[in-house]
């Protein structure tokens, strides 16, 4: 097949697989090959994390999955139209309050006002921003901006949640806290996740599966199932098994890099 197809399957028979990449290649107009031969699936109940060096096309993967870009080769199947997308930055509209920012997506979908307000309130509660509804983004810390961004996506009730290195710019403590909140949301809201990061320990801690990519062109070089139970115990991070798995993933990352 020479052209890529995105098939939003909207049958009543829901399959287990939400997102399926088969032999996906991405070549940019300038000839740069960002992705090559990528096979990847995200099933319901899964939280898949992709780690890889900077510029390996990790973000391109999400952009293709969300429809912002079209793959130049291969097939992409998507079995849901409820997709949450969390960008690297919080991408809040600076003139809108927390409340109005969280309302935005429902507003764009022309959701009736009562339902929109209910969804917004629920989402703000879920990320722990109750009481900050009237704050403007510039009065918030980086962590709170990211929470607002998460809440905004939560109003869509996503079945598939795409995260593009969302916590990369935050300090370590805030990042760990948000990791725990994300795990709690994952347990509570039952979405499937595809999470991009360059932190190996974050990847192992958050996910049910870790995928390792190599540098340009981005290729999947290894994949690891994460055996720890969900909901995940924060203490798991201090066990020998956790350290061993982080070591294995780091090793694969280093191999792929060379």
């Amino acid at each position, binding site marked *: 097949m020479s052209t890529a197809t995105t098939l939003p399957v909207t049958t009543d028979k829901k399959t287990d697989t939400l997102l399926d990449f088969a032999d996906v290649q991405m070549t940019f107009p300038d000839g740069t090959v960002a992705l090559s031969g990528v096979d990847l699936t995200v099933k319901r109940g899964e939280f898949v994390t992709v780690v890889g060096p900077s510029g390996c096309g990790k973000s391109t993967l999400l952009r293709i999955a*969300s429809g912002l870009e079209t793959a130049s080769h291969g097939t992409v199947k998507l079995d849901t139209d409820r997709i949450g997308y969390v960008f690297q930055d919080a991408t809040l509209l*600076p003139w809108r309050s927390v409340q109005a920012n969280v309302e935005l997506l429902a*507003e764009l979908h022309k959701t009736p006002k009562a339902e929109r307000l209910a969804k917004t309130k629920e989402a703000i509660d879920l990320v722990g921003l109750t009481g900050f509804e009237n704050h403007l983004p510039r*009065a918030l810390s980086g962590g709170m901006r990211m929470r607002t961004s998460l809440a905004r996506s939560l109003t869509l009730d996503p079945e598939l949640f795409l995260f593009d290195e969302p916590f990369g710019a935050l300090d370590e*403590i805030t990042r760990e806290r948000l990791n725990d909140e994300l795990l709690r949301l994952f347990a509570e809201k039952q979405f499937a996740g595809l999470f991009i990061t360059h932190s190996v320990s974050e990847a192992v801690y958050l996910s049910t599966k870790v995928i390792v990519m190599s540098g340009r062109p981005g290729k999947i070089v290894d994949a690891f199932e994460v055996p720890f139970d969900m909901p995940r115990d924060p203490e798991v991070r201090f066990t020998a098994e956790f350290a061993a798995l982080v070591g294995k993933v780091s090793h694969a990352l280093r191999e792929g890099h060379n």
Partner: protein
Amino acid sequence: MADSTGITPTLRRRGRNFGPAKVGLWGPPIALLALIIVGAYVANALLGTRAFLLPQPHVVLGKLVEPKTAPDIFEALGNTAIVALTGLVIASVIGIVWAVAMSQARWVERTLFPYAVILQAIPIIAITPLIGFSFGYDFPSRVVVAVMIALFPMVGNTLFGLQSVDRAHRELFRLQGASRWTILTKLELRAATPAIFAGLRISAGLSVVGAIVGDFFFQRGTPGIGALIAKYSARLNSAELYASVLVASLFGVAIFLFFGWLGRRAVGKWYDFG
């Protein structure tokens, strides 16, 4: 939940400091003004028979309360203000529509932008005869001059504002399948508001300049302060001349400050409007 990362930084307010800092801010320009006033008296004394060229400051200010001249000056200023305001409103509407049109497609921008630049580059004096032919020699032509002088900053600033929208913000809207109209009204125009107000502030000052320039060429009907300046200058009424120039300048400054204030009111909560 107010977590450890939830510290609300105190918003810094600029220009709200009182006390010694305020003296530091206003002291130097006031000192310079005092120096200029003293210089005017000294020059007046030294000029001897030609002292009428540079009247003493208190004589100039006196003209602004003198029953013989003050009504003329302020009436003319009022007429100028009407021309400037009309010109500014028209320039803002045309400027914003022009910029929005250009922001919608590359080819529209390529087609229209050169004309914005040409408009800006036209020496207004060179085309005043043409304006007179088409629009007559009173109010409409004065407004046309004000519009032509005030238009470019509105076009340029609005276009810049519309085009400086964050790429991720655009994608956020695209992901939800937002229409072009929705993106324009909920994202682009909102994001461009600070730039539009910055343009408005510049254009407001220019529209006053345009109205005064218009007065020089189109003196029928109820001309404004420009016509008065021309009259006083022809009669060598230097004190009246200085008084009119002073009033016109203060009006320009007041307009500039007003639109600065308006801009801060409109977007100051989320944008540091200069």
